[in-house]
């Protein structure tokens, strides 16, 4: 079963390979914003990050999920707000163990 910690680490390591905004803080953590004015990536960076995370989940953890499903876009609170909320979203899709 997926552990939340390993998912959060995978999200962060994927983000480290995506071009970030020049004013983005150098250290990424669970509270790092992915959308909005304080986001560390622009809109294209978020797209690239989501794709990268999907592919790494499959390659490194053997988990096949589609992060940007219809439910994700329709939620009142976007699962792409922060690294932490995205990790929660992945666990929910993959049936992992919450924190």
């Amino acid at each position, binding site marked *: 079963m997926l552990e939340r910690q390993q998912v959060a680490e995978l999200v962060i390591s994927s983000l480290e390979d995506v071009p970030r905004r020049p004013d983005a803080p150098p250290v990424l953590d669970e509270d790092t914003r992915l959308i909005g004015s304080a986001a560390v990536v622009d809109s294209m960076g978020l797209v690239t990050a989501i794709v990268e995370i999907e592919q790494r989940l*499959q390659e490194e953890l053997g988990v096949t999920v589609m992060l940007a499903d219809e439910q994700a876009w329709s939620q009142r609170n976007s699962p792409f707000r922060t690294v932490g909320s995205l990790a929660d979203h992945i666990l929910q899709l993959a049936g992992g163990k919450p924190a």
Partner: protein
Amino acid sequence: MTDRRVALVTGTRTGIGRFLAERFVQQGYSVHGCSRSAAAWSLEGYVHHEADVSDEEAVRAMVGEIRRQHGRLDVAVNNAGVASMNHVLLTPGATVDRVLATNLRGTFLVCREAAKLMQRHRYGRIVNVSTVAVPARLAGEAIYAASKSAVTTFTQVMAREVVELGITCNVVGPGPIETDLLRGVPEGKVRDLVDRLVVKRLGRFEDVANVVDFFVRPESDYITGQVIYLGGLHD
């Protein structure tokens, strides 16, 4: 990641798709292809997938297999298509769903999954296949032509969305060629269409391959969102 370039061609059981797949193999690519049923041919360097392009899971599995085997995808040609020859007043709704499922949804799904893999290396060439039935506004092919018009619009918008990822997206629109699709078209209709072309002959697989070759060249990185119809027709 393998050094050899990798191409995916859909609709490779017969016709243009098979021709393009064999050609890519000859050019040194590792080639993957698909059709809803098994291919009656095989070739070293070619892998066939039994996959319906309108099936999201099947497309994801196919591209996932390419990622596992090669770690890259350089070229994707969306050739799989179904046609429908009927008067609008006699066209069942189910036919519309079937044509759009393969021609538009299938093209979208393959483009999306292909681009996900291509973006990893900031390089990709996508070619979507349309038809001269679009600029010819052929009576009797309303749904088929409309589905291919949608493919063109989709391709041109996608071209803008993925340009930053090093991916180009273009369209080739063949005229009448001796393929499975054309066998269902009455001879008179084919003759009428050829008469409307500027170059008055049936197309050849080589004509399509010539345009595909142009679009997929690395040097064609300044060519995206373009449509080339064969035989001289244009919008």
